[in-house]
């Protein structure tokens, strides 16, 4: 069965690349542009992985991550956080709130697809 990836990001230029790359890697891809839309998308059709940017409108990435982790029905959902800030405390905060992995921008597109494949087993 085709794996389902949700990209949560508000920057159109990076969405273009992410969407294309995920599709090319052989996964089904959907895009959400803010925190609320992301949670709605998860509730509608549970993805296998979320690529979750931290700085998004309405509810930030940490908030979305913690909310997903609070629901036991979504415990198999993998979360990879994306951030444009590279502080160690932010990385640690993301992992403490339940993220499975953490990628700092700018990232190499090859590395991103590799991590996706790894996490989807």
């Amino acid at each position: 069965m085709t794996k389902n990836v949700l990209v949560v990001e508000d920057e159109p230029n990076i969405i273009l690349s992410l969407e294309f790359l995920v599709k090319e890697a052989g996964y089904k891809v959907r895009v959400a542009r803010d925190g609320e839309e992301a949670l709605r998308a998860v509730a509608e059709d549970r993805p296998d992985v979320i690529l979750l940017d931290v700085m998004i409108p309405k509810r930030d990435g940490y908030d979305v991550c913690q909310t997903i982790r609070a629901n036991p029905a979504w415990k198999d959902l993998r979360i990879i956080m994306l951030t444009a800030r590279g502080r160690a405390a932010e990385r640690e905060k993301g992992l403490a709130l339940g993220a499975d992995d953490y990628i700092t921008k700018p990232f190499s597109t090859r590395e991103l697809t590799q991590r996706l494949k790894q996490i989807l087993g």
Partner: protein
Amino acid sequence: MTPRALISLTFAGLMVAVVAVAGWLAWSIGADGAPRQAVHETALLYGSGAALAVIALLGGAWAVLDRRLAAPLRMLARDIETAARVNAEREIALAGSDHLAELTTAVAAMMHELADARRRAADTVAEASRRAESEKGQLETILRDLHEGVIVCNLNHQVLLYNRRALELLHMTGEMGLGRSLFTVMNRQPFLHAVEILTDRLGGGQPAEPGDDRMADATQPFMATTADGRTTFEGRMRLIPDADSKATGYVITFEDNSRRLAALGRRDHLLSEATEGLRQRVSSLAAAAETLEAFPAMAVGERQAFEKVVFDETRHLSQRLDALAAEYRELVTGSWPTADVYSANLLNGVVRRLRDDKGIPVVMTGLPCWLHGDSYTLVELLDHLIEKVREETGAGEFDIEAVPGDNRVYLDIIWKGPVIPAGELAAWLGATLTGAWGALTARDVLEHHKTELWSQAHREGYARLRLPLPAAAEAVPESGRRRLPSRPEFYDFDLLRYQKYSGALGRRSLKSLSFVIFDTETTGLKPSEGDEIVALAGVRVINGRILTGESFSHLVHPGRNIPEKSRRIHGITDEMVAGKPSIREVLPAFKRFVGNSVLVAHNAAFDLKFLKLKEAAAGVVLDNPVLDTLLLSAYLHDHQTMHTLEAIAKRFGVDIEARHTALGDSLVTAAVFLRMIEVLEARGIATLDQALAAANSMAEIRVRQAEF
């Protein structure tokens, strides 16, 4: 009466007596009868003559005495008086009285000495005044030329001294006025906080680091504003010690940093723009470029979209770079004032403020450690957060703990109740901190410390807020003391061997008990040969938490000198214990602190032996059950040969901050013991009786080993 008057009176009295005797004789002879009239007349004639002669002689003697002795003595007395009061160099001369020559010489010599002493005293005073005057001149020059403002205050915050620059910085015309409160010109909180931190650091709350004369070295950075809040200052405070090393006041040096802070803000903004701000653009660019390269066969429409991204982003980046470079050239640099802070001082400040100002009970737990930051704004932040958590969750009491991590220290606020959602927490951070200078938000404090804050589950039913901060940059003075060998294992285990505890207490689980973990420092290793306790400390452990704020720590007068050998280990000197209570007074206080708790110590037999020997004199009996972390470690890791506190702390992953102070060792032992309880439970040792039995079996083995 003067001697001269006395002599005159004596002689006059004698003369009157002679006349009276003569008169009486004449009268009594006349009364005998007429027949002897001839005899009578003759006697009367001779008698009168004799009396007159005696009077004349007396008169002569008086005249000589008066002229030669009484008058010169009186003159001498007047001379001495004049010389003593006015001029000691005046010559003492006794006209025509050779008889008093010796006295005159002696008096003259004395006067000479007096004159000399006066001259010397006058010289010393003149020299001292001259030096004081010159030092004052130098001090004034230094203070005047200082770029910083300087204000000296007593502990009531009354101004005792200040320089011109201080007036300028405070925008004051005229004088500040000595004796006036500092708080009429500056805002109050930062100074109260700095004094509190410094006194605490110098032994107020933590007698764990004895020996160092650190008052002169300890300074505390602060930020303050003028009372009207228009200008912000950055400075340092230092306490002024008296002869007994007690603080009598403080000196603050400060400078106007409003402009510097503004520049700092611009610089931070610029740096953030130049680094983090570019990530987004670079990220889009890199992704588009790499995708183009990796998929050469993509459709024309798709390809054009990617090419446009590459083009747009590249142009954007170039423009940003130009703007940033232009801004950079105009910048003055500076840095945010931070210092190494002992977590116990910082958290004590939070505990006190919440208890006194808001009535919120907060318990400080865990092992204190050193971190790096601005303690004043951190106290404000923690204060704000705890209050918000209470509002949000209704939690009534809190634990606060510093947890050392990898290159960082986590400050954890722990409460019973739900986790705070990230979104909610983000909303709190925008609030202005009330006590802080300027309009500082919680988010600003996080930014200055380059950190984040989050809430997550703690143990069952509990949640925590976690704030990571950088660990102190280098080893701090307190832990910098040379590492010295631990005391040898003490083989007199009889004290532990025979304790049996099978009452209700013995059946309770280790986790549910209240413990006091204690340690002593001593003059040597042989209590039965006259070695004595010089320090006794303990800390309470309840429900798996070290109650750092509930500690007992006393220096003890040993009633003998402290040998150099042991002084090198614990740093406690004869001077430090001078005037301290003896163990007879300290032991009953310790017994009250311990109450019914179970006692725990590392190598407990050693400490216990010292205490037991003093029980009779102190009039108390420590009959509490005692656990020994050394014996428990031997039970858990019997293949390990090293059971020193250092070795087992390392084995259990406990950071050692201040070894070889009674309180420091108690804290380390407590942390080790808490982790030990978990491992003991896993090995089926869950109750007090079981733990005592395990330790006793080890004691038996060690006693037997020692016999061979």
